[in-house]
């Protein structure tokens, strides 16, 4: 059976007993294997040491509790609240960005449902005019979520134009929330990143953008940092969405991403079902890591 982080933590913490030097090493390994990265791993261990070293006796339960506190404290420094305030004629516009294959379209489907079930009128804009059949994929999700969709008028239309038309329609038809899908792009492609900036600029001619959500795949490693930095710089990201947390990956790299960019995780995706999207709660996230 495959290695899993929770198992590793469990074996590390099985039954309370005195902490041995080996436990510290295992702790380090476990954090590294959860994609915390060497820098954050060192910092976390140092922080745990700082608390643990003052107590005369230390058992593995204490170690686990301290680790949980240290991790939660790091996450608590960020506010995961989505800002989606809207007023008539001024919908809250959410732009969803990310590299290829992280789950942007799926996230939008779930997010649209998430908001629609809370009684808001949602409009999604299919501005991924690049990938084959991306528009159809989003249309299927929109149907499942029971929300309206704006599609490109022809194949390969300028995504900024689609985004603009979506916002215009939301203003006319009185939608409260607009979610715009964009094509996946590697953060190293400057031309494609410029295109994002253009979409943003064009939309903001009519309505300010409420949130730019960067979708990050939990299976990503330290490259997630590069992605976050580039998208922050080019698209002004305001929140992170961590997807595919239902797999074996734990997404430990978000600690580094949050701290380095100051952008909070706001949503978490854990499955292919339309309801598998939740808000981000540090306590729950840490519990999932440790349990």
């Amino acid at each position, binding site marked *: 059976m495959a290695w899993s982080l929770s198992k590793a933590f469990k074996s590390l913490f099985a039954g309370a007993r005195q902490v041995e030097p080996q436990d510290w090493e295992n702790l380090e390994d476990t954090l590294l294997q959860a994609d915390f990265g060497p820098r954050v791993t060192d910092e976390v261990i140092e922080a745990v040491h700082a608390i643990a070293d003052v107590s005369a006796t230390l058992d593995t339960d204490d170690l686990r509790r301290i680790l949980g506190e240290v991790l939660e404290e790091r996450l608590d420094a960020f506010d995961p609240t989505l800002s989606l305030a809207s007023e008539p004629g001024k919908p809250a516009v959410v732009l969803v960005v990310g590299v290829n294959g992280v789950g942007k379209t799926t996230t939008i489907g779930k997010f649209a449902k998430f908001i629609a079930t809370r009684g808001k009128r949602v409009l999604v804009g299919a501005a991924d005019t690049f990938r084959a059949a*991306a528009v159809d994929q989003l249309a299927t999700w929109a149907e499942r979520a029971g929300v309206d969709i704006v599609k490109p008028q022809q194949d390969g239309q300028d995504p900024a134009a689609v985004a603009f038309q979506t916002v215009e329609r939301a203003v006319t038809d009185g939608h409260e929330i607009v979610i715009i899908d964009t094509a996946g792009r590697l953060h190293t492609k400057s031309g494609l990143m410029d295109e994002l900036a253009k979409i943003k600029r064009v939309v903001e001619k009519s309505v300010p953008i409420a949130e730019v959500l960067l979708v990050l795949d939990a299976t990503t490693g330290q490259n997630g940092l590069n992605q976050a930095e580039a998208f922050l710089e080019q698209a002004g990201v305001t929140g992170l969405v961590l997807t595919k947390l239902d797999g074996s990956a734990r997404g430990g790299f978000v600690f580094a991403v949050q701290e380095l960019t100051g952008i909070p995780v706001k949503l978490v995706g854990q499955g292919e079902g339309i309801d598998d999207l939740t808000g981000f709660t540090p306590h729950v996230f840490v519990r999932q890591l440790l349990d």
Partner: protein
Amino acid sequence: MVVFGTLSEKLTSALSSLRTKGKLSAADVDGTVREIRRALLDADVSLDVVKSFTGKIRDRALSDDVNKALNPAQQVVQIVNEELVEILGGAQSQLSFAKKPPTVIMLAGLQGSGKTTFAGKLAKYLKSQGHTPVLVACDLQRPNAVTQLTVIAEQAGVQIFAPEPGNGKGNPVAVAKDGVKYAKQKLYDTVIIDTAGRLGVDEDLMREARSVRDATSPDEVLFVLDAMIGQDAVVTAKAFQDGVDFTGVVLTKLDGDARGGAALSVRGLTDRPIVFASTGESLDALEPFYPDRMASRILDLGDILTLIEQAQKNFDEDDANKVAEKIQSNTFTLQDFLEQLQQVRKMGSMKGLLGMMPGAGKMREQIDNFDEKDIDRTEAIIRSMTPAERETPKLLNGSRRLRIAKGSGMTVTDVNQLVIRFESAAKMMKTVAKGVPQTSRAWDRFPGHAPRAKRSPPKRLRVRGTPPNARQRTRPFNRLLPGMEIVSDSVPNRPPK
């Protein structure tokens, strides 16, 4: 905002401290090994692989062989490189085809790893090799995956077999089976089966993938893996190995800045070869996987071996000496220049060539912006000249220039610029040949490298070489060879963290 350096930057800084020392002590080695460990972890190489890797490096670095060597630091680089290459797979691996067609290739992997796009690339690649592939749409899970594959098949100009609409409807095992049958009937020689993405921990879906495999008995099961994946690469790869027992690995999204640690992890843990490297969104962006190149790429010591090899193959010593003589005697003509351009050309694309240079990671953007067509345009202009004009550019009066412009499809201004740039370049080469250090603007004056408005100004590139020795002084084109680095003035070197 400065993040961590790349693996290569890390290793380079770790190893550069070695470069300054004569002999290696155990403390030196331990320090270096620690840096390598960190660099590898930053590159998302799996912890287990990192541990065994650094262990080997340490053992070998401390062995007598190294300590007695003339340049221990170089040997450590060598050891690291050798071990990297060994883990990455030694020789290059190729697809195996069935003796009796059709060859069945099944794709599997996590969601979003790039299976469907790769399916299209593989189909196009096989088609270009004279095969007749058919794509079979067995991803009936993800909304409109079937539509996506249909569009891609059209783009690749290959046949698709998609009897089920997907979106949760249809049985992938039946489709796969029928797909192979269809290929047999219609005499397609390769079947590429695109399957739904699944998590390694999802037992049901893994069982389904196994059923697809058992129903079609594929010749190759390719595991498609995103190069950006982190420590989960190990868990996922193991799960897929246990689940469908893949025969080869495809690494996707290598056109990004992912450090590719996953390549090491997967090789280190599953012993399956990496067959393809996928490097972009266009259907042509597919390359065979070269372990030695990947190792060099990870190290960012440049793909020096390949470069040397290619250079040796293509640069004829005699020709080079002749050119050197001509430069010194001031008889370097446009004809010679054309020949030089063609020789550089033979080494591959300028972009690819620049990308292989040590330190190229720092100037990726400039390289991306380099317009390969500039060389075409320059060639076109020179080719529109008469032999006499090529020998003696002074002949070029207004009407001749107009004729050349018309002949090459360029404007007279372009022709003028080329002549001016050629003259200053010839002058510059002569200066270089006389041993005066090259100025930072030298690159600018190379014909065929006209500054363009939207491009990052090439003048930012400074060519810094080993002190010119006699040979190099007479062979300016050899300045593109190893032993020198190109640094970008605008990007300050990051201090090692």
